[in-house]
């Protein structure tokens, strides 16, 4: 036993809202109230992380398994830190080191993992929908840690958590607890079509009362996404930046897109790199965000990424308390 037991754990707010949910796959079926409750639990978890002993026994006896069928050190480490900070045991499965390369299916991999008696699976996969499929095949809780282009709900939660805190510190706290982003506008710039971060942020930010502007070259900006309530599309970055509360740049992966989908990187940078000029068009308090990893001076100018309005490092830091809240709500909050 560590010294954690000696510390009285803070009482998280009752996560009654999250009790309805067995999994976090995307925000389908989640209410704003339930999400705000998660963000408030994350506030409490953030307190824990400021203590000398950054550990509470909240999930003692539980086992969290991270199943990463796609490489991602950052997200996996963040989830594992969130589990251990609550005294959960952690099992890590990474595709690179497994039989998956020998052609084993997800279903068969899961059959093996099930024998290890984990209580919750954190799943990342290059194909959309795998966390949903796993949720059908298991009676354990499932958290989507990124599935193809579909969703990355904990990234959206940590973005919301970060922005809500930054706005509050700037003297602009939410006027309505359940709609913290009412009257706020988030602009997301880049390869929208292939971005699960854009999809999850569009889903969550609008659920919490805000508006989302998606911006990028038309070839990477699916028109159908503009039909979602509260979501607007534009190919003009000046227009997208005007009046925004936050500007979020997405990583552009030219090597993956190839020359059939993207013009030269120079043209992309000229048209869509976030610069001081765009921050000047946004609201006076506007923030700069990026889900990482960052291509410096490609999708965002270094002076913005490292500047006073940047939330990039805070986004990373928010990952742990937000994921602590998610694990807690799904494992304990609903029991």
């Amino acid at each position, binding site marked *: 036993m560590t010294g954690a037991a000696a510390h009285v754990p803070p009482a998280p707010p009752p996560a009654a809202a999250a009790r309805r949910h067995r999994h976090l796959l995307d925000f389908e079926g989640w209410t704003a109230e339930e999400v705000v409750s998660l963000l408030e639990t994350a506030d409490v978890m953030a307190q824990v992380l400021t203590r000398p002993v950054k550990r509470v026994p909240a999930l003692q006896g539980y086992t969290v398994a991270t199943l990463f069928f796609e490489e991602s050190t950052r997200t996996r480490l963040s989830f594992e830190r969130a589990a251990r900070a609550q005294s959960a045991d952690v099992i890590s499965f990474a595709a690179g080191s497994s039989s998956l390369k020998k052609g084993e*299916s*997800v*279903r*068969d991999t899961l059959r093996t993992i099930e024998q290890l008696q984990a209580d919750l699976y954190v799943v990342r*996969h*290059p*194909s*959309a*929908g*795998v966390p*949903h*499929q796993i949720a*059908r095949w298991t009676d354990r809780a499932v958290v989507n840690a990124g*599935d*193809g*282009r*579909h*969703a990355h709900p904990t990234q959206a939660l940590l973005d919301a958590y970060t922005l809500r805190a930054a706005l509050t510190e700037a003297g602009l706290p939410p006027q309505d607890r359940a709609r913290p982003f009412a009257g706020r506008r988030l602009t997301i710039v880049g390869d929208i*079509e292939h971005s*699960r971060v854009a*999809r999850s942020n569009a889903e969550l930010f609008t659920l919490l009362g805000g508006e989302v502007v998606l911006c990028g070259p038309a070839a990477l900006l*699916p028109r*159908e*996404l503009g*039909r*979602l309530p509260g979501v607007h599309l534009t190919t003009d970055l000046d227009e997208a930046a005007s009046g925004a509360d936050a500007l979020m740049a997405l990583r552009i992966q030219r090597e993956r897109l190839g020359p059939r989908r993207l013009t030269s990187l120079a043209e992309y940078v000229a048209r869509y790199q976030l610069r001081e000029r765009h921050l000047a068009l946004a609201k006076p308090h506007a923030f700069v965000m990026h889900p990482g990893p960052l291509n410096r001076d490609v999708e965002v100018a270094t002076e913005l990424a490292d500047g006073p309005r940047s939330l990039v490092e805070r986004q990373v830091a928010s990952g742990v308390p937000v994921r602590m809240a998610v694990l807690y709500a799904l494992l304990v909050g609903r029991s």
Partner: protein
Amino acid sequence: MRLALRGGRLLDGAGDRGTHDLYVKDGVIEGLDLGGPVDVDVDAEGKLVTPAFLDLHVHLRDPGQEVKEDLASGLAAAAAGGYGTVVSMANTDPVVDDPGIVADLVARAARVEGARLRPAAAISRGLRGEELTDFAALKAAGAVMVTDDGVPVADSRLFRSACEYAAELGLVVQTHSEDPTLRDGGVMHEGAVSQRLGLPGNPDAAEAVMVFRDGEVARLTGARVHIAHVSSRRGLEVARWLKASGAPITVEVTPHHLTLTDESLCGFDPVYKVAPPLRTTDDVAALRAGLTDGSVDAIGTDHAPHTLAEKQQDMLTAPFGIANLEVAFPLLYTRLVLGGALPLERLLWLLQDGPARVMGWPAPRLEPGAPADVTVLDLGSERAVDGARFRTKAKHTPWQGEALRGWPVATVVAGRLVHRDEG
């Protein structure tokens, strides 16, 4: 061998023949109400007796992919679905691109209890779209159609040559009309649903573009080109325009494109992953309208079995295809005929006279001397779909548990009772 189907209502493309005992002897229809001793008696009272269906589009996976399906399971499944004749596709392993493989299929199928097999052969060797196969030799071995189904023929010059040879030899060319570069890596219909789900989309334009090319090459060469599995409003409208302007094309639609939409993919279950993809309610409405306005010539199942393990892979990896031979008629009868969208006679036409006309075969009739390919349909009893009862090796089905009417209770092929379901 003499067989009697007793007391059923006889219906074929020539009309309603009333309630009779139908006698079958030595592979052909003998006559009505003849009496006398028989070897096999089938009680068809209260049932519909009609020519066995023709399916110009099945994947039997034989040779080489017998883990998915083989001639025995596939032809038994066809018989259980009321089919008397099926045309098997050439995308097997090895590909049916050699006369020896065609001859082997024909010989082995003759020993199987089930529907009769009429194999298609490949247009290009290995379905690679680079070199033509030997059409005359393939036809002599028993091939009735040429197709690269599963893979669109990207090379338009090769496709034109294929049409020229096929026209000369009287072979039907069947096409999988999708522009492969516009389809790109799409795994479902491109639209609002695919964008929400983050799955790569396959736009309806990929189909419309290729239907147009295929129809224009048919007009240019005079070949009879059968457009397989048209799935979109746009694709069907292009086909309709081509037909009206004199292109010698015919059009097929499938049971799943007539009954399912892209919303089915919302649960990320690859059982609904099929090519071309399930599209929107508007596309389904257009295809249904096409059944009655003459733009659709035949319903083909595109029965495409895969193992459960393959269908339990992720959405990007799982193979395309739905196994549907055994539910096709009950599904369409229940949803379309009982749903008021289609007269029973028209549905039967699209499964009997329609496909026969596409192939240039005689219309199937319940007349003395005609081949004794007959199915008995129970239009009254309702039964839930249960994949576990399927004869196909693919027991997973999008319609599991759905209550349907119109189950085929007996099928006679060449005078032999090859399917009987006592319920």
